[in-house]
C-alpha cells in the first residue's frame, strides 16, 4: 500500500482528474474573466486591451457600491432575523414530535421546492398596489394608512425584496438547524435534567453551543447566497426603481448583456469573486476565534 501511494504515476493519475476539473471549471474561467476585464470588449467584434481601466472605473461606480451595500443589508437581516427564527422553529418542531412534526417540516420546506420564478411572481402579485393581497389585507384590518407601493417606492423596495428572499430561504435554514438538533446526543440533556437545569439553561448552555458548527455553516452559506443574489431581483424589480434594489450579480448581467459592456461586466465579476473570498475568510476567522 505504502509503495503504491509513493508511485508518482499513480499519484498523478489519482490527482489529475480532480485537478483538471478545478483548472478548467474554476481557474481557467476566472483567468479568462480577468483577461476580458482588462479589455473594452462589447461581446461582439474586436477588442482592445485597456489594462486596469475597467477595474478603476468599477471601484468609482456608485451602483457597484449600492449593490454591495444592498447585499450586506440582505446578509445582515438574514442573519439577525431569519436565522434566529429558523432556529426557534427548528427547536419547536423537534419538541412537537409525531405526525405534526412531519407535517410542519413539510410545510416549512414547501417554498424551497417551488421554482423561484413562481414564488417571485407570486410575491410581485402580493405586493401589487391595485389588487395585491398585502394592501387588501391591510385595508380589511383598518390599517389602510400602512398601505405602501411595496416595489415602487425607492425607500422601501429593498426591504420588500429582502422579505421575499428571506421567505424563500427560510425552509433551508430551518432544515439545516433541524438536522443539527436531531443529531445532538441525548445523554447530555439527560445529565442536564438530573442536574436540575431549566429549559432556558438547556437551550443556551447546551443546544446553542453544540450547534455552533451548524450555525457556522448556515451563516456562511446565508452570507454568500446574499452576495450572489440574482434570480429574485431579476424577476421582481430588476434592481429598480433606478438602482435602489440592485445586487451585484444582476448589475454585472445588465452591464455585460444589456449595455454590451462585456469587459466591464467581467471586471465587476472579478471584483465580485474577490469580495466573496474576503467575506468567507473574515467569517472563518470570526468563527475560529470563538471555538473552544
Amino acid at each position, binding site marked *: 500500500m505504502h509503495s503504491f501511494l509513493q508511485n508518482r504515476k499513480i499519484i498523478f493519475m489519482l490527482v489529475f482528474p480532480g485537478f483538471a476539473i478545478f483548472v478548467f471549471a474554476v481557474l481557467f474561467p476566472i483567468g479568462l474573466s480577468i483577461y476580458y476585464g482588462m479589455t473594452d470588449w462589447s*461581446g461582439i467584434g474586436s477588442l482592445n486591451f485597456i489594462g486596469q481601466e475597467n477595474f478603476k472605473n468599477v471601484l468609482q461606480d456608485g451602483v457597484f457600491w449600492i449593490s454591495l451595500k444592498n447585499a450586506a443589508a440582505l446578509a445582515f437581516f438574514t442573519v439577525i432575523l431569519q436565522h434566529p427564527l429558523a432556529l426557534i422553529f427548528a427547536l419547536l418542531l423537534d419538541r412537537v414530535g409525531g405526525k405534526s412534526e412531519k407535517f410542519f417540516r413539510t410545510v416549512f420546506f414547501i417554498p424551497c421546492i417551488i421554482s423561484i420564478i413562481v414564488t417571485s411572481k407570486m410575491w410581485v402579485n402580493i405586493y401589487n398596489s*391595485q389588487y395585491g393581497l398585502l394592501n387588501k389585507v391591510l385595508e380589511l384590518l383598518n390599517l389602510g394608512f400602512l398601505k405602501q407601493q411595496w416595489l415602487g*417606492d425607492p425607500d422601501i423596495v429593498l426591504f420588500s425584496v429582502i422579505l421575499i428572499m428571506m421567505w424563500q430561504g427560510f425552509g433551508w435554514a430551518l432544515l439545516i438547524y433541524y438536522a443539527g438538533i436531531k443529531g445532538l446526543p441525548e445523554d447530555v440533556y439527560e445529565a442536564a435534567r438530573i442536574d436540575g437545569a431549566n429549559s432556558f439553561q438547556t437551550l443556551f448552555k447546551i443546544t446553542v453551543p453544540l450547534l455552533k458548527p451548524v450555525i457556522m455553516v448556515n451563516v456562511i452559506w446565508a452570507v454568500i447566497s446574499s452576495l450572489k443574489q440574482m434570480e429574485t431581483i431579476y424577476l421582481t424589480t430588476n434592481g429598480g*426603481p433606478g438602482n435602489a434594489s440592485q445586487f451585484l450579480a444582476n448589475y454585472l448581467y445588465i*452591464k455585460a448583456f444589456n*449595455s454590451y459592456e462585456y469587459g466591464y461586466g467581467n471586471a465587476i465579476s472579478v471584483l465580485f469573486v474577490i469580495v466573496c473570498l474576503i467575506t468567507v475568510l473574515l467569517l472563518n476567522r470570526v468563527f475560529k476565534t470563538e471555538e473552544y
Partner: protein
Amino acid sequence: MRNNRKLVVLLLAMTMIICIVGGFNALAAGKVTIKFFSNLPDRTAGMGKLEQFLIDNYMKENADINIKVEALQDEPYKQKFRVYTAGNQLPDIFAVWGQPAFFNPIMSSGYAAELDPDDYKGYDFFPGSLNGFSYNGKLYGLARNTDFMVLYYNQKLFADNGVKVPETYDELITAAKAFRAKGIAPVAHNGRDSWPTNILYQDLVIKESGDQELIYKAIQQDIKFAGNEELLAAAEDLKELVDIEFFQDSFIAADYGAARNLFGQEQAAMYYMGAWESGLGSDENFSESFRNNVSAVAFPGMKGEGKGKSTDMMAWNGGGYAVSSSSAVKEEAIKLLNYIMKPENWARYAWQMGVAIPAQKYDQYMTGKESKLQIRLSEILNNATSISGTPWNDAATPGFKTDSQTIIQEFAAGMKTPQEFLEAADQAAQKAQQ
C-alpha cells in the same frame, strides 16, 4: 480490457454508420434548410401567426426548401442572439430592431448580409423606414412595421364618468384628475420596463418644443440637456404627471403584462402604448364590453406658439429582419426574406389580419372589414405632420440605452429632480459620445 475495446470499436462504428446514413438521407432529399430566428414565439396569433403562415406558404411553393423556426420572447431572444453573435453562429435569417442601440453593432461588425436596394424598388416602403436598417449607406435589413405611440382609451369609462376625451394637453390633465377623483387609475403604464417612460418624455419634448430634432441634438451633445428650457419644461411636465397620479399606483413596478391587463380589465381609463397593440380590440382574454369600447387618440399637443401639436408624433420603424453574412445558404435566405416582405404578403396580411401597421404602403389592401380601432390608428398615422424616428433611449449605444432607462426610472420614482435628471442625461450622452 479486450471486451471494453470491442465495445468502443462497436460504438464508433455505429456512430459512423448513423452519420453516413443521415448524410445520405439529407442528400437524397436534396433539401436546403434555412434556420429562421424569430422574436414572435406565439405562432397561433398576432404577427407570429402571420410569419408562420408566410413561411408555410413559401415551403409549399418551394418543395426543396425546409425552414426551421426558433422563436423566443424579446428579452430571451436578445440574450440568445448575443450568444449566437459571440460564437459567429447566427441563424440564416433573424429578427432585428432597426435601432442603433441594437442593430449598429451587428451591421458595423459585418454580421448582417448586405441587401441590394434595387430588389425593393416595388416594395413601397414608407420614406425613411429603412434608415435604421442601413449603415454607411448600405442596406442590411428590412422593416416590418410602423410603430407609433397613441393614447388608447376606454370609451365606456369616459362616458360613464362624464369625462371628455382629451384633445389638448390641458384636457388630458383635467381628465386624469377627474378619474383620480373617482378612484379610477387614469393611465396604465409599465414603468418597470422604463422604455415607455423614455418614449413619453420624448413625446413631451416634441409637444413642448415642436422640434423633432431637439432631443437627438442633446444626445449628440450639440446642445446640453441641462441647459435647454424646452427639455426642462418636458421634464417638469413628466414630474407633474407623476405628482397628480396620472399613472396607476406603483406604476414603477408594473411590467408590460400588468399594465396591459389593468387597461384591458377596465381598471384604467387610458393606456399609453404603441400601435402594435392594435389587436386589443379583438383580444378574447378581455371582456366584450372592453373590446367594443377600446379606441385611440393621438397624444395631445400643447397650446401656444412654437409648440408641438398632436400630429407631431412619436413614430419609428422598429422590428424587422436581416440575413446572416456567414450563412451557408445566404442566397436562399435573402430570397425567403424578399418573399416574406413582398407588399402582397407582409403588408397586405398584416393589415388585413389586423396584427400590425406595416412599414409599407397598405391602403390598396383596405377591405372595409377592418376593426374600428385599426381604422382609428390608421387615421392617426395618416394625419401625422411630423414623425420622430427612433426613440431617444435606442438612438445611441447599448450603454446609453441602459443609462437613459435607469435615470428616467429614477426620475419617475422621485429619486431625481428634473434638473438632476437632465444632468444625468448629459453624463450618459457624453459617455455615449466617447
